[in-house]
């Protein structure tokens, strides 16, 4: 019997695992992950992690930046708690060995970041997520009590009478299906960027945890808020970190003009100015790109329109010292050198502000079920996350969920419910019948691409009611077709085709909630921009979207008020 079962081995999951082990070494804690933990997508985070540390900085200023950046959709009690705990978590990572970049006197260095009024973003060059993940993973190895299920895929949560009792998972290597009873479960599976065709997200980001919770009856929150990062490489979608602009990079259009000055983001200065121009928030920068495109001021390429990120004036030495990975990525994947060449970039789906509805301890409405990180929505990110808030988020809420789940496990020691084995057997039957079932339907990849293009067309940077309504129907039809998809692989050994099909099912569920929430929100706020409702509507929508799965499988959307403590809704002001 596992006390705390953690689904997902990225930053949030590993931080939670350490928290459980430190809370009570007698607890059985297990991390089940569909990839080896050090392969998790936290590894790709580049720019940094925000935490107030400077003598001229205050917690309130970080709160205000986050809340205004989120267009007042953040829960302010959550933001205040998060921002107060973030520096401690970053120091904890330092104590565990994270190689943070340093000032000459040995203190941790900080850099500017988009939407932040003070320099407070800690960084490990531009491989912050990589170092953070490996530090966490290597630190978990110190705790012998943390059991791992590497390359196991959870297909279902076992829930009975409003409480979670464990999960069913497939050992990808052998195909063995196992019921894992657990007293509490933490979902930490990250985001769902792969529901879109063009994303910085890794192949594994298929919204599995969100779908598991949603199917088990837990609501998802704010799913219409999808972040486009303004600077992705055009073919691959590889992220060029915001740190490139924090270090002084410029965004220019086809005429070499710093076009952000035309979109109420400030006036150009030679060196970066905080909360201004290239250091504006990501939603506003990505929206500005669309307007540039409509004005014919972007550059056409075989992979769509682009603008340029200009780092040439920074010089080779600064690029190598501060953003070496940017140079490495450009050279390897774009065949150019940012020290001498312009980098073509376009907005790319990067982050899901929405996720599983939780409280400040990561608790969902299902007893014993917790969620943390990108898969959860507390919410601290509101309608638009600020760059460098997500890494501290996985640490702060990973730890909190770990502590809360450990506490739950300790106080709920009764024997397992009869439902556990019955539900486990049901799931085993379902999965066994799926593998290489000989059906000759459509290919998984074709269905996946159709879903991705449906989402891009309906729930991209700008949205409109008619198109969203059509997407509801398209996705329902796709779900039907996906249930009859072609599965050729009958092997039990490392059957990635079955895995891809299960992931597609998760993505379709998540895609439906994104579209349903976007259709329901008839206003424009942060990353959700409706061309048919262009204004923010605080009277109607200063509220979270809360989406449940109806008995017929369709999403049912309601609203939940936002918690406001000290910062009443106001205008988002950048560059003036």
């Amino acid at each position, binding site marked *: 019997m596992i006390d705390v079962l953690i689904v997902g081995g990225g930053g949030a999951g590993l931080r939670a695992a350490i928290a459980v082990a430190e809370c009570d070494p007698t607890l059985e804690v297990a991390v089940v992950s569909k990839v080896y933990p050090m392969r*998790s997508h936290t590894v790709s985070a580049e720019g940094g992690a925000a935490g107030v540390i400077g003598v001229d900085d205050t917690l309130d200023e970080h709160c205000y930046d986050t809340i205004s950046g989120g267009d007042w959709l953040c829960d302010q009690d959550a933001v205040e708690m998060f921002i107060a705990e973030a520096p401690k978590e970053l120091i904890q990572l330092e104590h565990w060995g994270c*190689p943070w970049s340093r000032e000459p006197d040995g203190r941790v260095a900080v850099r500017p970041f988009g939407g932040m009024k003070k320099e407070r973003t800690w960084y490990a060059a531009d491989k912050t997520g990589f170092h953070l993940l490996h530090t966490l993973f290597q630190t978990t190895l110190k705790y012998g009590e943390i059991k791992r299920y*590497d390359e196991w895929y959870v297909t279902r949560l076992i829930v009975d009478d409003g409480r979670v009792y464990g999960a069913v998972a497939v050992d990808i290597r052998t195909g063995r299906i196992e019921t894992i009873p657990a007293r509490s479960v933490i979902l930490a599976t990250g985001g769902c960027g792969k529901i879109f065709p*063009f994303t910085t997200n890794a192949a594994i980001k298929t919204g599995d945890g969100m779908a598991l919770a949603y199917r088990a009856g837990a609501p998802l929150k704010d799913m219409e808020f999808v972040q486009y990062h303004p600077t992705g490489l055009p073919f691959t979608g590889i992220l060029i970190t915001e740190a490139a602009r924090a270090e002084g990079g410029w965004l220019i259009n086809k005429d070499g003009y710093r076009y952000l000055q035309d979109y109420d983001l400030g006036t150009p200065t030679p060196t970066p100015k905080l909360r201004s121009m290239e250091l504006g928030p990501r939603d506003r920068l990505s929206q500005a790109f669309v307007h540039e495109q409509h004005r014919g001021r972007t550059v056409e390429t075989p992979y769509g329109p682009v603008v340029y990120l200009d780092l040439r004036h920074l010089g080779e030495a600064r690029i190598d010292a501060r953003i070496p990975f940017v140079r*490495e990525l450009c050279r390897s994947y774009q065949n150019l050198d940012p020290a001498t060449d312009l980098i073509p970039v376009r907005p790319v789906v990067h982050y899901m502000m929405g996720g599983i509805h939780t409280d400040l301890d990561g608790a969902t409405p299902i007893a014993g079920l917790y969620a943390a990180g990108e898969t959860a929505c507390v919410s601290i990110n509101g309608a638009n996350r600020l760059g460098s808030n997500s890494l501290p988020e996985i640490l702060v809420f990973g730890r909190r969920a770990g502590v809360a789940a450990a506490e739950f496990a300790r106080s709920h020691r009764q024997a397992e419910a009869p439902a556990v084995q019955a539900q486990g057997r049901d799931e085993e039957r379902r999965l066994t019948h799926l593998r290489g079932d000989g059906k000759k339907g459509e290919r998984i990849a074709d269905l996946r691409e159709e879903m991705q293009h449906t989402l891009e067309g309906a729930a991209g940077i700008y949205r409109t009611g008619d198109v969203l309504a059509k997407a509801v129907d398209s996705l329902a039809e796709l779900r039907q077709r996906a249930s009859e998809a072609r599965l050729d692989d009958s092997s039990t050994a490392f059957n990635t085709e079955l895995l891809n099909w299960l992931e597609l099912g998760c993505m379709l569920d998540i895609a439906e909630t994104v579209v349903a929430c976007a259709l329901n929100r008839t206003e424009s706020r942060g990353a959700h921009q409706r061309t048919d409702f262009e204004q923010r509507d605080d009277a109607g929508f200063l509220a979270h979207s809360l989406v449940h799965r109806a008995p017929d499988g369709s999403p049912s959307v309601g609203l939940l008020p936002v918690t406001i403590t000290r910062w009443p809704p106001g205008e988002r002001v950048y560059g003036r």
Partner: protein
Amino acid sequence: MTDTAETIRQQAAARTIRLEVARYRPEQDGEPVFQSYDVPLMDDWAVLDGLNYVKDRLDGTLSFRWSCRMGICGSCGMNVNGEPRLTCGTFFTEYGDGPIRIEPLKGFPVIRDLVVDIDDFLVKLQHVQPWLIREGEELPLTAEYAQTPEQLEAYKQYSMCINCLLCYSACPVYVLDPDFLGPAAIALAQRYNLDSRDQGDRFDLLNLDEAVWGCTFVGECTRACPKHVDPAEAIQRYKLTAAIRSILPWSRR
């Protein structure tokens, strides 16, 4: 990637390149067999793009690992024309008209097709105690341990290991002796040994015939490393440390 653009380009691309892919399905293959697939020869495609084309369009039964496709997650290491490579960063343009032979990383048991069993590395990694070891009271969570940029530089290179295991696949010692601790694990031990904040002692773990002394200094690991970690240097440096320590037992590093 954008699929519409991809479609247009594929129509424009009349040329194809042949991938000769090692298949191993434990239920049906006694030993690995090669299967050939022709995929579009696109000048900006990596070998991984070709494999995904096979998986998505030609043969759903092919299994391989991949995730970030930006050279940082370490999943997609394979043997490409005899060399251990990250397939996301290995481009068709290197191989002319082909064919390209793709096999699982050498030196590891094959689970299925291009997927190898790397659990042995995970055991070895844990064995070298790859975490910061401190003696005495920890600092409170209000202050960091000071570390100058020079002190950071002393171990930074070894902290860049992505655990892709190309170095093990390239290592002539590991291929013959699976007990050899191997390049990445030793480099990661050195990552902590050389960290000014670390007070641990890994001498007994490293000063062994199956650890640093097993290395014959061929340097293949360093040549294979896609992240310029230079594990060969890490091993040679520790040999020196261990030798000095054998003469001067009170010296730590």
